[in-house]
C-alpha cells in the first residue's frame, strides 16, 4: 500500500534535484486535488488531465493523475508574460463555470488525486521531455549527443537526419506522431538535414540560442507565440539564415515526455499499476 503523500516523497527522493514546491505566484508541483492520506490505486501520467483522460483513469481503476498542465486550462501566474499570455481565470469565474464544475464534480466524486509534476521534472539533468520526443520520432540514432552517458542534457538538441525536403520531413513526422494540428514555416522544397528538436513553447531567446550553432536547417518544436518566435522565424527564413520551423503542437511535443515519466516512476513505484494515457491532439483540420 502507498499513500499519495508517500508517493510524492518517493518522487522527491528520486528526482535528483532539490525539490522546488513553493512558487508564490501560481501552480506549483505537488497535489492540486485530493488528500495526502488517500491510498493510491494506480497512476496515470499525461500531458493535461482532460475530462476524457480522467474517465479513462477511472475506468481502469487508477486514482492518481500525474500531469504537466493544471486541469483548469491555465498555467496560473507562474510563467513569464510571454508564456502565459493571460492571467489565470479568477476563482469566482471558475466557480460558476459549467465546464469546470463538471470536471471538478467528476474529480471529487471519484476521489481522484491530481498531482502536477513539471518544474522538478524539467530541473533534472536529463531532459526527459526531449528524450521522449526523440524516441517517439525514432530519431535516437540521429542524435548529435555530446556525452556518451545519456545525451539528453538540456540544450543538447541537435540531430543530423538523412537529407530530405522540409515537406517530406513534415509529412513523415505528422504520420509518425499521428497528429493533425501541425504547422510549418519555410519553403516546402528546402533541403533539411541538421535539425534542432525542442518541446513546448519556443521563445525568441531560445530560437536565437539554438541558431548560434552553425548549419542548423530547421527547428522542430511545440508552439510559438505568433508575435514573437513565429514572425522571428518568418524573418529567419526571409533572411536566408535557416530554412524551416515545424510546430508540432504543444500537446504533441510534450506528451511523449509523460511516457518517460511513467517509465521513470516504474523504477521506484512497484505497488500499483502505472500507465501513460496521452491526452491526444485536440485539433482536426480541413482536408
Amino acid at each position, binding site marked *: 500500500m502507498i499513500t499519495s503523500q508517500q508517493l510524492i516523497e518517493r518522487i522527491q527522493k528520486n528526482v535528483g534535484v532539490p525539490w522546488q514546491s513553493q512558487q508564490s505566484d501560481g501552480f506549483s508541483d505537488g497535489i492540486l486535488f485530493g488528500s495526502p492520506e488517500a491510498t493510491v490505486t494506480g497512476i496515470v501520467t499525461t500531458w*493535461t488531465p*482532460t*475530462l*476524457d483522460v480522467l*474517465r479513462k483513469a477511472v475506468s481502469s481503476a487508477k486514482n492518481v493523475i500525474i500531469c504537466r*498542465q493544471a486541469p483548469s*486550462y*491555465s498555467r496560473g501566474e507562474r510563467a513569464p*508574460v510571454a*508564456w*502565459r*499570455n*493571460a*492571467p*489565470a*481565470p479568477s476563482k469566482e*469565474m471558475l466557480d460558476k*463555470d*459549467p*465546464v469546470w464544475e*463538471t*470536471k471538478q464534480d467528476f474529480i471529487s466524486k471519484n476521489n481522484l488525486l491530481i498531482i502536477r509534476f513539471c518544474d522538478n521534472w524539467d530541473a533534472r539533468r536529463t531532459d526527459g521531455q526531449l528524450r521522449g520526443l526523440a524516441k517517439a520520432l525514432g530519431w535516437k540514432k540521429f542524435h548529435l549527443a555530446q556525452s556518451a552517458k545519456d545525451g539528453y542534457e538540456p540544450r543538447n538538441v541537435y540531430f543530423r537526419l538523412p537529407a530530405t525536403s522540409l*515537406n517530406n520531413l*513534415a*509529412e513523415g513526422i*505528422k504520420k509518425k506522431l499521428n497528429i*493533425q*494540428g*501541425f*504547422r*510549418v*514555416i519555410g519553403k*516546402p522544397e528546402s533541403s533539411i538535414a541538421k535539425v534542432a528538436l525542442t518541446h513546448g513553447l519556443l521563445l*525568441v531567446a531560445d530560437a*536565437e540560442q539554438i541558431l548560434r550553432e552553425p548549419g542548423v536547417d530547421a527547428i522542430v518544436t*511545440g*508552439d510559438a507565440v*505568433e*508575435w*514573437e518566435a*513565429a*514572425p*522571428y522565424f*518568418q*524573418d*529567419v527564413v*526571409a*533572411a536566408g*539564415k535557416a530554412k524551416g520551423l515545424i*510546430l508540432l*503542437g*504543444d*500537446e504533441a511535443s510534450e506528451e511523449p515526455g509523460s511516457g518517460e515519466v511513467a517509465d521513470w516512476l516504474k523504477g521506484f513505484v512497484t505497488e500499483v499499476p502505472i500507465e501513460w494515457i496521452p*491526452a491526444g491532439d*485536440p*485539433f*482536426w*483540420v*480541413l*482536408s
Partner: protein
Amino acid sequence: MKLSRRKFCQVAGTGLLVASPLVRALGQSPSTLTAREVVARIKKNVGVPWFTPTADDFKIGDPDAPITGITTTFMSTLDVLQRSAAAGNNFVITHEPTFWSAADVVSDLREDPLYNYKLNFLEKNKMVVWRFHDHWHAHRPADGIFTGWNKAMGWESYASPGANPFSHEYVIPETSFEDLARDMQKKLNTHSMRLVGDPKLRVTKVAHAGHYIQQCMQVLANVDVVLVFECREWEAAEYVRDAIASGQKKALIQLPHEGGEEAGMDECARWMKTFVTEVPIKFIPSGDPFWMPT
C-alpha cells in the same frame, strides 16, 4: 502636366516615384508629407482621445523625413518590408511588432544577426515604421480591426457587441461546423486553421473570444462556435474539448493571428485614404505564416 490619380498610383506602384528625374519629367513636385504629419492626422481622425501608455509609436526611422508612400500591414515582417520598399513605400504602419515582442524591446537583440539584418534593411531603405495597434482597436464608432474582419467575412449585418470588447457575436444563417470553417478559410485566405468539435454540428451563433481563457469562458455559454487566435494551446482548445466531453454541443476554430486581424489593416488603408491623399497607400498582407503538410 497634371497626373491623374490613377496614373499617379501606377507610377508609385512601380516604385518609380522616388526617382526624382522622372517626377520632374512628369512635372510633379515630390510630396513633403512626413510620417509625423500622417500620424497627427490619424490621431485627429481616430475618434477617441489619444491615450498612454500605448504601443502605438515610431519604432524605427526619421518621422520628419518626407515619405514616398504608405504601407499598412498586420505584421512588419522582413518580407513585408522588402515588398514595401519594392513598391516605393518607405512608411510602414503595422498592427503588430517589428522586433518580435509586444513592446518591440530591442535591448536583448543587439548581438542578434537577424535583428541587425532587419535593422540594416530598414536603415538602408530609409524606412519609417509606426505601430498602430491599441488605437485602431479603440477607433470609434467601431474597432477598425473588427470592421475589416466583418467586411472580409461579409458578416456586417450579423454582428452585435459581445460580452467584452473583443467578443463580437454573430448570428449567421444555420450551417454545419465544417461548412462554416471552409467558408471562413476561403474568405480569410488562411491555410492553418485548427478545429475542435463535431464537423456535422449545426451552428448559427458564433463569437470571437479574444486571446484569453477568461474571454472563452465568458462567451462559450452563449454560442455554438468560438473563434480564437493567438492563444496558448493549454487554454481555449482544452477548455472546449472538455465542454464537448461533458456533453455540450460546442466547437472552436483556432485561426492564425492574421486570420483574426489582418483584414483590419486592409480596412486601415481604406480609412486612411479619406484623409491622406498626397502619397499612395497600399495594404500589403503579411499572410498566414503557416502551411500544413497533407
